[in-house]
């Protein structure tokens, strides 16, 4: 067969549909990072002194650290003194109900397809909406409070539930963890907090929607989810950003804690602005996500669909501390245009009979480079630990790349670890077969890609699965010339 069809090459020309920006009256701190800036952020948020001290400790430690260089991505130097670390839409007044949310903010979310009012009334999903550095609205909090579930912005949690925050903040990702997590610990601005008390099955999906709006702003949010004994929760996270010519930094930290018999399911559909066809602009997404199965028989499941960002650097992991605990990681990562993704997971087996499953589906198109990097570590104590890993890569066109770096460390001889990996191309023969049946080339490509991802999509909550499929279709759009 001859060269790659032009339709497939034009995958690079995909349109980003969330690229608008909104004019909001915004409160920002001066560019750059110093103890003064951190103190100013902390003061703006009216934080207790222990939290300010924690931030400053992190900052001092960060000054001694070097930006990591081991990842398989390529980007210019980041000037950390040229970033705005705090930007908040100025509230008209303090909010007592959703009706008081700034109409411009509401409109922005409507445009993103997330009607805050409707979310509250119609769907079984509670939403925390975060613009730049602060949470602008949290829906359904009252209904959740009736069963004892706390779901609020991180800032609110610091004010209203300081003991819980103090107990768990940094308990899974300590402030010294890594360069980006340490930076986040120093400057994090807002995020979601979620606490499910003992024995409670959270009655609805919880969801946070992140939006970077202000130019030159970094977003450093921090999410903390704690599920007490036998509690269960399903949590969704979505992200977008305006199209801007310069890069924006997003360095978030997510910590999950699951006590005995608890289950946390964390799903992400990440659609940060990926940059244009030449690789100009786009979000640098350096994120640390980790869960701790602290109690026996607990379970943490990460599902991620990564279609955005110019650079993705994230390894949602699970520390399997409790005996018989279960960790799962299901991932679809698409890199088109000049996007680069270095993503995967870490499964740390500590408890007995702990099990982990990793399913990674990487799709590369255009000049996209996709790397799976995963660590499966079985400590001496993890008698009978099991892991199953499957990494599949799908290439569309001939100018993209797929790479796999699995790391396996087993210190207990009873461990069973399986690793399977495949690399395939959307073949001309498959496309011809579909087209011969009447299915247009673009639809056929989308169908084959969606089929490739099905194992992961079926792990997503219903509404999200549809959203994820649509996102992939959009990302593969513009393919028929």
């Amino acid at each position, binding site marked *: 067969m001859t060269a790659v069809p032009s339709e497939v090459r034009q995958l690079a020309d995909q349109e980003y549909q969330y690229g608008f920006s909104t004019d909001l009256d915004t409160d920002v701190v001066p560019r750059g990072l110093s103890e003064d800036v951190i103190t100013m952020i902390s003061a703006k948020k009216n934080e207790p002194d222990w939290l300010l001290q924690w931030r400053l400790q992190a900052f001092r430690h960060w000054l001694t650290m070097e930006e990591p260089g081991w990842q398989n991505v390529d980007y210019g130097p980041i000037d950390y003194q040229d970033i705005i670390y705090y930007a908040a839409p100025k509230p008209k007044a303090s909010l007592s109900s959703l009706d008081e949310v700034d109409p411009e903010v509401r409109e922005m979310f409507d445009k993103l397809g997330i009607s805050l009012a409707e979310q509250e009334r119609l769907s079984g999903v509670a939403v925390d909406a975060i613009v730049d550095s602060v949470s602008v609205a949290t829906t359904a909090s009252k209904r959740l409070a009736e069963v004892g579930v706390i779901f609020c912005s991180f800032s609110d949690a610091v004010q209203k539930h300081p003991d819980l925050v103090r107990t768990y903040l940094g308990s899974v990702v300590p402030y010294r963890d890594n360069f980006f997590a340490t930076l986040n610990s120093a400057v994090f601005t807002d995020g979601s907090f979620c606490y499910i008390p003992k024995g409670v099955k959270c009655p609805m999906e919880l969801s946070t929607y992140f939006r970077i709006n202000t130019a030159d702003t970094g977003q450093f949010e921090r999410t903390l989810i704690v599920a007490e004994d036998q509690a269960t929760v399903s949590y969704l996270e979505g992200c977008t950003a305006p199209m801007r010519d310069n890069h924006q930094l997003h360095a978030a930290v997510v910590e999950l804690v699951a006590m005995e018999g608890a289950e946390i399911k964390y799903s992400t559909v990440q659609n940060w602005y990926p940059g244009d066809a030449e690789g100009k602009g786009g979000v640098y997404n350096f994120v640390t996500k980790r869960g701790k199965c602290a109690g026996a028989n607990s379970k943490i499941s990460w599902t991620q669909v990564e279609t955005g960002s110019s650079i993705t650097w994230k390894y949602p992991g699970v520390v399997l501390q409790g005996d018989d605990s279960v960790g799962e990681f299901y991932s679809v990562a698409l890199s088109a245009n000049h996007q680069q993704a270095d993503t995967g997971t870490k499964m740390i087996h500590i408890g007995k009979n702990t099990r982990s499953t990793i399913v990674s589906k990487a799709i590369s198109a255009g000049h996209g480079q996709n790397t799976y990097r995963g660590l499966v570590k079985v400590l001496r104590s993890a008698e009978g630990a099991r892991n199953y890993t499957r990494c599949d890569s799908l290439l569309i066109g001939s100018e993209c790349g797929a790479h796999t770096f699995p790391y396996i460390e087993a210190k207990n001889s009873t461990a069973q670890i399986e690793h399977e990996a495949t690399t395939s191309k959307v*073949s001309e023969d498959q496309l011809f*077969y579909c087209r011969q049946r009447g299915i247009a080339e673009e639809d056929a490509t989308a169908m084959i890609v969606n089929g490739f991802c099905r194992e992961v999509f079926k792990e997503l909550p219903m509404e999200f699965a549809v959203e994820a499929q649509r996102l992939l279709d959009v990302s593969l759009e513009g393919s028929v010339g």
Partner: protein
Amino acid sequence: MLRIENLRAAVGDKLILRGVNLEVPPGEVHAIMGPNGSGKSTLAHVLAGSDAYDLTGDVHYNGIDLLALSPEARAAAGVFLAFQHPMEIPGVGNLYFLRTALNSIRKVRGLDELGAVDFLAEAREKMKLVEMDPSFMSRSVNEGFSGGEKKRNEILQMAILEPSLAILDETDSGLDIDALRVVANGVNALRGPERSMLVITHHQRLLDYVVPDRVHVMADGRIVTSGDKGLARELEEHGYTSQGPADAGRPEAVGVVS
């Protein structure tokens, strides 16, 4: 009516079809036989719209210039190819695939899309034709199917898409006698006054079940001999070698012999 005139197909310097001429009137079943490498499968793929070849010549189908159309447009115009090696599409349900295909074609023809429920009823009916177990519908397209199951799946697709020109590329290869009978029954049930079929095969065996109106023999990129169903039996007895230049004078021969 399908009319092929002086069709040539090449890959690079290599000429595979060297001037094929053929007419298939509506409602007729024509068999194309010939040894390996004679160009039979290439002819099938070229008719279905494969872009792997450089082409010259004309193919007219019901007055349409077939070679000018994309594969999907040909499908919408009623052309169907039962593949010799059907593709596997992991993760895509068979039923979903078929409904997408049918609705894509219906859309081009200006018909309403068929809903999931109506489609399922229709698919169940057609599955009986090829004695296919309903469990196949929820499995991924051809993934993990045996050779026979894949071929039955092709005939099922044909039954659902109801083409007016069906090209069967070695549908009998790799089938045991029971599977062959099932497939042949399916094909026969789809014969009709408006549906032309081009049945490509190595073996006489299939033609015992699917009795053709005409038989053509291909060799070295051309049709060298044509005849009625008796020709297939002769080939079975004497082999393809007897269809060389010495037989060029046969009354039924239309091909030009090299």
